[in-house]
Each structure stands twice: as C-alpha cells, then as structure tokens.
C-alpha cells in the first residue's frame, strides 16, 4: 500500500479504535470517542498539510 493518505486513514482508525475501547466502557461512548479521535487525527493532519502547502520543500 503506497498511498500516504490511506496510511493516514488506517493508522488513525487503529489508534482511534484503541483509545475509544480503552477509555470508555459503554459501546455508544466508545464509538463517539473513537470517531472524535479519528476526525481529530485526520482533520488535524489535513489542516497542517494545507497550512504548509505554500512553503517550499
């Protein structure tokens, strides 16, 4: 798998599922926290990438 973006989605999913299950006991809360972590990781990375876009390598 060579796509950087797919790695971002997959890695975020693993980490989000882990912390969702670790830090919450009820299923609904686990899903909610997992989704929040996943969105924060993916969204934060894309936002950072967008901010860095104008700068040269």
């Amino acid at each position: 798998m060579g796509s950087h973006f797919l790695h971002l989605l997959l890695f975020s999913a693993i980490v989000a599922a882990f912390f969702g299950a670790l830090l919450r006991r009820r299923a609904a809360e686990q899903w909610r926290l997992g989704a929040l972590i996943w969105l924060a990781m993916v969204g934060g990375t894309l936002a950072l990438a967008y901010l860095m876009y104008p700068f040269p390598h």
Partner: protein
Amino acid sequence: MSVADDTPHRPRGARTSSWRVGLTAMAIVSGWLIPGLGHIVLGRVRRGIFFATLVLGSFALGMAHDGRLALRDDRQAPILSALQVVANAGVGVADLLARARVYGVATYSLPRDPAEREYGTRLTILRDRTKSIASIYGTAYLWAAGLMNLLLLFDLWDIGRGRND
C-alpha cells in the same frame, strides 16, 4: 468496536487479596508476552480479542511495510535507540520472533565493538529495511503496536485492582 459489558461473572465468595494480586501479576506478564491474553486471563475475553486484533494487526502492518526493528546502539544516541527498542519490545514475543527472522538472531542491540563482523551485518540489515519509502509508516505501525500494548498493561493493573469494573 463494541467491547462494552465485558465484565465477567464472579464466583460467590470473596477472593483473597493475595490470590487477586497473583492473578493480576500473571495477567500483566501474559498480556505483555501475548497482546490480549492478559485481559482473557482476567475474564475480559471479548476485550482481549479486540485488543489483540488491534495490536497484532498494527504489528503485522509494520512488518509488511519494512518497519524499523530498532537496535540499541551504545555509540550513537544510546538513550534514544533504547527508547525505540522499548517501543518495539512492547509487543512481547512477536517482536522477538520478528527479530530472529530479520536479523537471524533474537537481538536487541548492536555489538559494542564496530570491528565485530556482526556489527556491520546487523547495521546493513537495519539500513536496508529502512530504505523503502513505506518503511517510515511501517515503523509508525510497529511502535504504535508496542506502545498500545504497554498501555494495556496499565489497564490490566486497573482491572486487577478492581478500579475498572
């Protein structure tokens, strides 16, 4: 992802504290050696299987992408390289087996003397693995797997102490 309501049915009668401490210690050791097994030992079977899938899945992805199996290097950045080894070793036996397959021997460090033949051999293998573009992702998966499993040991401690029911 639902691993809720996984509290086991307890037998009637109070368990002695020494029995509980022993069981917790056994769960922590087995949980480190084989991810998820500690939770199963404490009766959280679904939770154990779920965490085992996550940790070992992440570890397998790391190996498939030529992740860095760090070696402690006394000559360059001994503390940082040791921390990398700790992150790797968090997975337990799976990391040991992976090292035996990759380096030919289950090792966690480079020899102290660079003149030793093994020093050059291990360094070459380590550098060859990290040449591929995907290796940096592989390293992230491997370290995430190890660190997640180390965090699970604290969860086992809490469950064993009765603070996580």
